[in-house]
């Protein structure tokens, strides 16, 4: 579970090969449209697109399930809250709790919409590597440079941070085991006690991270990295005709959702 970040599932499907910038825009636009357009019919259109996308991406169902599972809790909570506190005439009640037909409908709609949003968003994270995603966001965020926001540097920082996440997990594991070998117990006591028990893990982690930052900065400078200087890329992003197709599809989806 830990080795992959943001649930990226490497592959060569059509969805994988769309330009990441277009994918980000597509997903953003679809999600906004989902919020704007009410109604089960429209929801069905978006859901169909989501499912079709998943099928095209060839990401295994087990993978999809693992990503969706945590959201199901949220969905259940949304459903219950909406059902209990939604507006409308009650037709069933238990004690102080009332449920109305309209409330149920709303609950169903909101829950399903949540799932569809997660599915469409996951299409992005399943098929786009974290570096590609960072590059796309950096490119899209270029206008921010006028406001002195260092988008390129931030993107590089994000990429490097992502690269070290598995390493950090391993190191945390190791330190925890080493301190357990000295009698540390991370599972007992209330929140305060547990927090204090984590000190022998957190201090070394922080120290290692600072040392690492120093070492990395030196290694990067040794390879002629200079902040602020424009860099070229080994794998530059290249928009292709198929990306225009993607954007057309998105437009078509929205039109269809508006019409049903």
């Amino acid at each position: 579970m830990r080795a992959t970040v943001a649930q990226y599932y490497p592959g060569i499907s059509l969805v994988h090969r769309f330009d990441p910038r277009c994918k980000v825009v597509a997903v953003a636009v679809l999600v906004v449209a989902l919020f704007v357009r009410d109604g089960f019919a429209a929801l069905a259109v978006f859901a169909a697109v989501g499912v079709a996308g998943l099928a095209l991406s060839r990401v295994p169902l087990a993978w999809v399930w693992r990503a969706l599972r945590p959201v199901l809790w949220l969905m259940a909570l949304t459903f219950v809250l909406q059902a209990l506190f939604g507006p409308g005439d009650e037709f069933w009640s238990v004690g102080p709790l009332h449920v109305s037909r309209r409330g149920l409908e709303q609950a169903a709609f909101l829950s399903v919409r949540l799932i569809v949003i997660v599915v469409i968003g996951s299409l992005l994270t399943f098929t786009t590597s974290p570096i590609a995603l960072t590059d796309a966001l950096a490119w899209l965020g270029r206008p921010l440079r006028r406001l002195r926001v260092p988008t390129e540097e931030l993107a590089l920082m994000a990429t490097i941070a992502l690269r070290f996440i598995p390493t950090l997990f391993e190191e945390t594991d190791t330190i925890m085991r080493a301190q357990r070998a000295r009698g540390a117990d991370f599972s007992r006591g209330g929140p305060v006690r547990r927090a204090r028990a984590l000190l022998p893990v957190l201090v070394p982690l922080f120290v290692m991270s600072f040392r690492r930052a120093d070492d990395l900065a030196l290694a990067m400078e040794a390879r002629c990295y200079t902040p602020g200087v424009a860099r070229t890329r080994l794998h530059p992003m290249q928009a292709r005709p198929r990306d225009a197709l993607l954007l057309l599809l998105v437009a078509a989806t929205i039109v269809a959702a508006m019409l049903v």
Partner: protein
Amino acid sequence: MGVAIPLIRLRGLRYRYGGAGADALDGLDLDVEAGEFLVVVGRNGSGKSTLARLLGGLDRPTAAGEAIVAGHDITTPDGRLAARRDVGVLFQNPENQLVGATVEEDVAFGLENLALPQREIRDRVDGMLTAFGLDDLRTRQPHLLSGGQKQRTALAGVLAIPRLALVLDEPTAMLDPAGRRDVLAAVSGQWRDGLTIVYVTQEMDEVALGTRVLAVDAGRAIFSGTPAELFGDTAAVERLGLGLPPAAEVAVALAELGRPLRNVPLSAAELVGELSDAQAGDAR
């Protein structure tokens, strides 16, 4: 035939960490000729790591009479930037040098920083991956590599930028014997292709790799000569906080027992040779 200008020329090099405290480098003098394989030894705190960093143009000397590295004056900011381009530096911790999400991304990093055209980056990266046996690991994520593979990737990344010299700061300290052999083979290969090497190490059996060894102590160059000359002076070895290759340890022990060998052996083979010479000498 004219006199060759040394690739590296340092006179009175000083470096002090910010604030008070002893100088990490206290008037170090050094000449390194192009094509040399210089091994640098010294105890922890002797200044050898500082020297490595300064040679790579990665830090500003506090003072120097002269500090020319690959034709650049590293006391000036422009000189240091230029030195960073011509002198590569490989560090001890393989993990803390890799920034790319995959092996090929990391090897490309330096070339991307120089804003080279994509085609050229592609070609150089492919060449480096092949040269260092990393073709099969092209898309591997760094945390899945062994120590030796990480260090080879880092080396490929450093040398992706064409260099005049390569400085290595204890590059094998964290590796197992196989990893160490791989890195040493790669470095030796580069040296044979004409790259000047400055190799800082605490592993005494790596000293024999070099054409010359420099011993550093308290920020100064104390000794320069052949490994045999260095290890033959047991008092100096002790004083400088160095160790001995195992063969030399046996030779030193023999000398203490009153049975010195003619030359200081650096390997088992040399020791065997010296022992049979000594026996032949006794027989006469």
